[in-house]
């Protein structure tokens, strides 16, 4: 009983310290900015007034976009292969075979035929750290790819690999459909209505396909 009371007191004390700092900081900000509690509508209006005259949409045709993306990838030692939907499975098999690796992981929701027989497969769901360590490679679709900055975008939904699998392991096979290629970063941000809860934008060095 006594312990409980003390615990409660302790909690209350902590709460009040937090609230004190919070209100102190917010009060200082309010005094400094002289903007006593702006209404949401007013704030939104002010936000909309920000001038944005930068390029939103690129100027390249679909084919030019794709070749720019490939160029930019190749300049960074990323191996790029092109194929039709009908030959995708064959190409995946070929890439897995040439990698010389055995154990791969794929997101929970991918076409079953991508998980080529003859290799060991893990499903990307609740993998422990040491299980991740045992995996040689990742096969995953992506949310989209940005040509200008050679960026692979993942939103980590059920049909894309999870965040842990972006730094580990060091071999990845990303499957990008032509319809997913955009030219500029603002084009990517215009692609969705609902914000993703998670996102990773990968533009850096990486050996993969």
């Amino acid at each position, binding site marked *: 009983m006594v312990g409980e009371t003390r615990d409660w007191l302790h909690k209350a004390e902590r709460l009040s310290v937090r609230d004190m700092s919070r209100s102190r900081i917010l009060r200082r*900000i309010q005094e*400094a900015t002289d*903007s006593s509690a702006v209404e949401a509508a007013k704030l939104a209006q002010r936000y909309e007034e920000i001038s944005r005259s*930068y390029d939103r949409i690129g100027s390249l045709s679909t084919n030019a976009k794709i070749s720019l993306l490939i160029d930019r990838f190749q300049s960074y030692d990323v191996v790029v292969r092109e194929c039709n939907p009908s030959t995708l499975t064959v190409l995946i098999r070929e890439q897995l075979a040439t990698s010389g690796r055995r154990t791969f992981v794929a997101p929970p929701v991918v076409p079953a035929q991508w998980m080529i027989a003859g290799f060991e497969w893990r499903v990307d769901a609740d993998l422990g750290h040491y299980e991740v360590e045992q995996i040689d490679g990742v096969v995953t679709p992506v949310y989209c790819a940005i040509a200008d900055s050679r960026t692979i975008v993942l939103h980590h939904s059920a049909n894309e690999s999870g965040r842990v699998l972006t730094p580990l392991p060091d071999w990845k096979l990303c499957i990008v459909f032509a319809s997913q290629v955009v030219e500029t*970063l603002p084009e990517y941000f215009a692609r969705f209505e609902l*914000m993703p809860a*998670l996102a*990773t934008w990968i*533009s850096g060095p990486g050996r993969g396909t």
Partner: protein
Amino acid sequence: MTSQPTLDPTLASPFPRAVLPILRDSQLRMNVAHAVDIIQGKRDTLVKEKRDWEQLRSAAAAIRTHVLENLGAYLEEFERRCIARGGHVHWAADANEARQIVLKILCDEGAREVVKIKTMTGAEINLNPFLAAAGIDAFETDLAEVILQLGRKEPSHIVVPALHINRGQVRDIFARCMNIPELPDTPEALTGAARAFLREKFLNISTAISGANFLVAESGGVSIVESEGNGRMCLTLPKTLITIAGIEKVLPRFKDLEVMLQILARSATGERMNPYTSYWSGVTSGDGPQRLHVILLDNGRSSILRRSKERQTLRCIRCAACMNACPVYRQTGGHAYGSVYPGPIGAILTPQLLRMEYAQSLPYASSLCGACYEVCPVKINIPEVLLELRSVAIKQQRRSALRFIDPLYVALWFAGVLFLKPRLFRAGQRFCRTATKFWTGKDGWIHSMPLIGGKWTITRDLRGFPSQTFREWWEKRATGYTRPNA
């Protein structure tokens, strides 16, 4: 060898004194100039390539200005959304509060070890020594930070903190601290050694500490950019993540990242996008840390907000383009600034974070050439703020009684009196003409003067006083002169 510099602005020597040992260290200056040249070159190429660069800069500056004008509203929105998505939000008025909050969370977790992503706010609040004193081992994971931590050295740049150390020196540090005497000094061998050293930490330590590049009010989300992959290890493997973010870091909407990420990468490292950018909003079951804490750090920022000219300092997104462009920083590197924030932005940010009670010499560590303003992606007029802070520093000096033993102050005070009274002014002119006659050369120039006058003539010549002033000439000439139409 230079002694270990201090980056605590309350203890550091004034800039002109701190810089002396560095100016004698030619190895350090060579390392700095070399590294800065490379980044600057890459940045210039990519900025030239970008046709809408100026428009992006304007939009970025406008977004950041809008945030600062409505900071309270956006912080509250961030807090609400972050909590709604399962995060915890803490408010720290100063460095000590922030450190105590971190310690409290670590104690609740029972954590004896933490992994860290490079964080400027962490450095600002001096977190590592504090945690060490509390018996908690904090492991840096950014390659440059690992070098500094193992080598017990101080950072000298905010994006590439070990740029003053060259590859050979890195090899020596790793060989000694990781016990690999045969380690070659190739980049691959060095990164390989660091990776092996870190991997075990990543897999075993369940608490991470990070900073934040951006907070998103609309979603309660946090974004971090990085170049190595260590960040994503820290952000995804541990169970608990503590993020320490300055209150000014917030952006209104997720979409604003389309501007910020474009300008940040080009300005910071000369890339079209940062190699890896992570974004998360709250807790996602089955992916990444399940306990998320965000500490909103004031530590002097709200007092900067109050002053209209200085407020723009808080637009900063910590890209470091200003230090790469600065002719002073290129000569001195970061240590002379005596702060974790060096270069032009440090020269305005550090004294302000300390409410102008320390580091008052920093606003003078600039030639006011404006190169920093020209490259700043959020258009902070650093020279304007420098001048404003100089005037604040001068006003402080004026209040001090010691001013009357400063010869420059007394001389200028006397000049002020002289220039106000025409008769005194004329007498002064005559006096100076006679008094300086001895030092004036045949060519009409004064090449050297004794005492305080020498401060001027040590680096430049002074025009001698003419044998006749304008007034004297005019009075003589005016005789016999008739005004037209009179």
